């Protein structure tokens, strides 16, 4: 239970960090450091079990049992190595942060750092590939935020790092999927022992390449190395932890984890050794060029990671032992150096070795600690770095392949190590050597130096007692190589080739350091024709530009282009279908009647009129004729309800359209001949296809069983004789409720659009001046007929609509139709008003819409009395004068329909008709002042 406990504790600490920060400010680092150490001790209680080889403590919990993905944690030797890095170095960095930052709040930093530690902990323990991937991604995201929080200049580096490491993450995800599919399990320890690695070379190669990609991006290997120096925009504690000890080691961990399966693979060996050594040498050369201490350290990290990758590629037990030792050594000396560079930066105000000089006299302790860590990095005895480097040398000589490979690889490694030696001394000398100029500087507080001192001295002590590490190294070798191995890390191995290589390194390195002026001159040039970040930016911009270019194909503000597409597509599909041939049935009875042709002619005339009209009003007239003709069609086809609805809708459409048209120019915009011709061709093809499809594919069968059911059973089931209405309110009431809601939303959207955008102003008709002085010119006089008629017609219309509503269940009528009749009454009242100020119907239209939908929903809920939502409730109410009234809740539902439709009609009339400001029907709300403001804008 220790493992999930530690993971949970780290997560809890992350969440608690901002709270702690509220009280402690930057000192939050201290309790966090203590907690990290406590958790490390907790893990250490299981260490004897791991080191003795008795077994790996593990934890299993179901996560996605349906697909077999589990929350599996497993602490083997390799995991223990990295856990100790994560927790111990993490504790040091946390303690360091408590002094590094300025006083004040750093809650986000502590949260992200602790969260990162939790993710890293989970990553190295995960025994499920999906889980491993999730933690891998969390470290990427934490890194992004930790870099990005350092201000504006860090935003591009943060993005570049994120994109690159996330790309590596995708490679890992692909590998995860491949392994899952091939082996049928997500359990990492099972996958690594699967026979597919040897039986299926294609699979092994693919996974090898993908894992290498993931690891190389994470661990900054050439050619992805550039992100690490780029990421130095982050604050020093972030660099010390993420970019020296922990995150960049995730790639190393991944390579070591997959070594048992892939170590013998040629691609794996070649890529790791080749790219690793190139990175090692290039990184070291770049480090020698840098003047900024932090940048120097970044390239040094790149170089050291290159050594690690190469040695993992060698893959022998001795190589794995060396990799283990060097991972540890590097984490210690590199974290130390980052922390101390931060100290120097804080105290001296610069990290540039051209500005820093002679600090050894004023900061002797800092100088000593830096020197100690740098000696470890340079591989000088008796520090841990010497032991690890010499064991690497020994292992390099046994690199797999033909006989010449070992010596060549060893030689390159020696070159890299010589350069490492040179830049280590360059770093120490650059800051602390030479004459002292800033003599006023003082040694920082002990607390600031303490964390770095611990790591620095640990490098020395561990070097002296290095055999103590052998049990851990043995376990790691067993976990990464597969067989038990006896490691013999020691300061002195007797005279060997490796010792000779160390001597060469020390000697040549010293020469290079002594001839540093010459070296600087030689290296003072660009070693590479391009910079990684520039290549990245070029690729990045190129990708965006390519996307824009692809998007341009369809990018247009003109609706016509978008609207034409579906019809073009339909025409194409239809021609394909037609060329394939159609099986056409027979009509059960003749479908055309002579009178129909009158309707066809009317439709043709109205369509033609709408198409050729240049005036908006004329087009509207034609559209109106078309609508009425369609209504007639419905009557002819035996659909009186539909016909009535169509008729009323047409009236209201024309009324609303007129309200808008008077704000627009008289004539349509001119369109070019080409466009008209193209539109005509498209229109004719689409029309032809539609007619053909309608003729051949509809109505060629007897009535459907559903229709039969409704016709024969509707009256028995509902008591209603108007079958269409019973379908709307009884059988398919849920559909109607949905449609009602759409209607209501359309009304609200109209209100929202008009609240956000003012209407165009009304245009004064020019022709009216001709009648100046006559009653036609006066709005009051001109509407007298309307008003007189309207006065007695309006109550009648409302009565009529109520009657239609009540009888809808039995005769043509119902909620939709009666509401439209009522709406037409409102339209009449509206149009008869002498001015738009006096026109509005002072009804709360939004409340009307809402109450309509509300009533419908409540009726639906009442349906539960009968067993289900929207089921009509029937009641026979005895009347006082005898007999009974048959009540059905479908009627109440229809009232809901009525209210919602009336609401939308009144909305349209009020909001589109008004000249200025909101109508009175609108409740005094925010909307009122907003549309008032937009109206004011129009008059300006």
């Amino acid at each position, binding site marked *: 239970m220790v493992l999930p406990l530690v993971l949970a504790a780290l997560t809890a600490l992350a969440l608690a960090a901002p709270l702690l920060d509220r009280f402690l400010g930057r000192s939050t680092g201290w309790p966090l450091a203590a907690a990290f150490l406590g958790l490390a001790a907790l893990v250490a209680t299981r260490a004897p079990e791991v080191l003795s080889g008795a077994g790996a403590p593990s934890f299993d919990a179901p996560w996605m049992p349906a697909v077999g993905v589990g929350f599996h944690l497993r602490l083997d030797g390799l995991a223990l190595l990295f856990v100790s890095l994560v927790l111990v170095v993490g504790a040091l960095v946390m303690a360091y942060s408590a002094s590094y930052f300025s006083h004040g709040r750093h809650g986000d930093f502590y949260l992200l750092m602790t969260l990162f530690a939790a993710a890293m902990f989970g990553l190295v323990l995960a025994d499920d590939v999906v889980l491993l991937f999730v933690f891998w991604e969390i470290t990427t995201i934490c890194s992004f935020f930790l870099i990005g929080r350092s201000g504006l200049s860090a935003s591009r580096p943060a993005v570049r790092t994120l994109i690159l490491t996330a790309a590596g993450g995708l490679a890992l995800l692909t590998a995860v999927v491949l392994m899952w599919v091939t082996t049928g399990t997500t359990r990492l320890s099972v996958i690594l022992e699967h026979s597919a690695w040897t039986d299926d070379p294609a699979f092994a190669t693919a996974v090898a390449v993908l894992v290498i990609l993931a690891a190389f991006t994470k661990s900054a290997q050439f050619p992805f190395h550039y992100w690490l120096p780029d990421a130095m925009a982050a604050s020093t504690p972030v660099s010390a932890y993420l970019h020296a000890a922990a995150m960049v080691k995730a790639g190393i961990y991944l390579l070591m984890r997959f070594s048992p399966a892939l170590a013998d693979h040629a691609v794996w060996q070649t890529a790791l050794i080749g790219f690793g050594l190139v990175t090692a040498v290039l990184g070291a050369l770049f480090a020698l060029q840098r003047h900024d201490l932090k940048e120097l350290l970044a390239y040094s990290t790149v170089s050291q990671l290159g050594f690690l990758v190469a040695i993992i590629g060698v893959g022998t037990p001795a190589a794995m032992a060396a990799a283990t030792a060097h991972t540890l050594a590097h984490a210690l000396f590199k974290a130390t150096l980052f922390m101390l560079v931060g100290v120097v930066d804080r105290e001296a105000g610069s990290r540039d070795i051209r500005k820093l000089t002679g600090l050894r006299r004023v900061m002797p302790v800092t100088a000593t600690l830096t020197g100690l860590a740098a000696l470890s990095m340079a591989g000088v005895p008796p520090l841990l770095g010497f032991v690890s480097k010499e064991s690497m040398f020994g292992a390099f000589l046994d690199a797999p392949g033909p006989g010449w490979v070992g010596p060549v690889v060893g030689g390159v490694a020696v070159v890299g190590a010589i350069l490492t030696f040179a830049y280590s001394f360059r770093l120490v000398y650059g800051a602390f050597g030479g004459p002292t100029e800033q003599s006023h500087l003082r040694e920082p507080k002990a607390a600031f130096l303490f964390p770095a001192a611990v790591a620095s001295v640990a490098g020395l002590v561990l070097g002296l007692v290095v055999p103590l590490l052998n049990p851990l190294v043995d376990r790691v070798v067993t976990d990464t190589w597969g067989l038990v191995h006896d490691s013999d890390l020691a300061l002195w191995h007797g005279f060997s080739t490796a010792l000779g290589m160390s001597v060469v390194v020390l000697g040549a390195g010293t020469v290079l350091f002594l001839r540093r002026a010459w070296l600087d001159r030689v290296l003072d040039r660009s070693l590479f024709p391009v910079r990684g970040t520039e290549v990245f930016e070029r690729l990045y911009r190129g990708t965006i530009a390519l996307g824009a270019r692809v998007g341009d194909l369809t990018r247009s*503000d*003109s609706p016509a*282009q978008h609207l034409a597409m579906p*019809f073009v597509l339909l025409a194409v599909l239809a021609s394909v279908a037609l060329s394939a041939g159609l099986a056409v049935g027979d009509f059960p*009875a*003749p*479908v055309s*009647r002579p009178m*129909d*042709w009158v309707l066809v002619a009317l439709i043709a005339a109205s*369509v033609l009129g709408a198409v050729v009209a240049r005036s908006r009003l004329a*087009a509207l007239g034609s*559209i109106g004729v*078309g*609508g009425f003709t*369609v209504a007639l*069609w419905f009557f002819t*086809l*035996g659909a009186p*309800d*539909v016909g009535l*609805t169509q008729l009323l809708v047409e009236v209201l459409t024309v009324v*609303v*359209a007129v*309200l*808008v048209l008077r704000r627009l*120019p008289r004539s*349509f*915009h001119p369109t*070019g001949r*080409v*466009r008209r011709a193209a*539109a*005509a061709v498209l*229109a004719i093809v*689409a*029309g032809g296809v539609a*007619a*053909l499809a*309608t003729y051949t594919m*509809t*109505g060629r069968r*007897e*009535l*459907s069983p559903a229709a039969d059911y409704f*016709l*024969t059973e509707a009256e028995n089931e509902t008591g209603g*004789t*108007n*079958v*269409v209405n019973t379908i*709307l309110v009884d059988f398919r009431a849920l559909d*109607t409720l949905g449609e009602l809601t*759409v*209607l209501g939303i359309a009304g609200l959207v*109209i209100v929202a659009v008009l609240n956000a955008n003012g*209407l165009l102003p009304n245009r004064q008709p020019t022709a009216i001046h001709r009648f100046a002085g006559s009653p036609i010119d006066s709005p009051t006089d001109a509407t007298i007929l309307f008003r007189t008629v309207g006065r007695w017609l309006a109550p009648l219309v409302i009565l009529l609509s109520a009657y239609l509503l009540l009888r809808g269940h039995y*005769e043509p009528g119902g909620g939709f139709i009666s509401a439209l009749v009522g709406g037409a009454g409102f339209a009449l009242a509206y149009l008869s008003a002498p001015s738009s100020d006096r026109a509005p119907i002072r009804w709360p239209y939004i409340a009307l819409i809402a109450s309509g939908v509300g009533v419908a929903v409540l009726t639906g809920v009442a349906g539960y009395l009968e067993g289900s939502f929207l089921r009509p409730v029937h009641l026979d109410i005895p009347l006082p004068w005898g007999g009974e009234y048959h009540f059905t809740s479908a009627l109440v539902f229809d009232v809901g329909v009525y209210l919602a439709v009336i609401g939308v009609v009144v909305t349209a009339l009020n*909001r*589109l008709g008004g000249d200025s400001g909101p109508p009175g029907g609108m409740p005094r709300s925010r909307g009122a002042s907003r549309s008032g403001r937009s109206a004011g804008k129009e008059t300006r």
Partner: protein
Amino acid sequence: MTLAISVGLLVAGGVYLVVQRGMVRITFGFVLLGHAVNLLLVSGGGAFRREAPLMSETDASVAADPLPQAFVLTAIVIAFAITVYMLTLAGVGKRDDDTRGGPAVSGEKDEEKA
């Protein structure tokens, strides 16, 4: 046949209008397309039985299919709401209901000149 021709005419007119310039014409185009689809739906029920499905007056054996009628009835009202919404869009803006694309749009401009 007659119904199919009507649908074809309405579709042709609707398609022609929706690819024109100006929100009002696009709206009118949609109105025509709405009519076309409504007639198509009714045609799906069959145009050979043309008695209203009112059981107090009509015998079930000759009444028209009520199901598409119910569909079309609600469709008409929804189409009305959409029409009003589109007309609203035509009524807001800077100058009028023009829908000509910005300068970034190629091709369109040439047509306008023609």
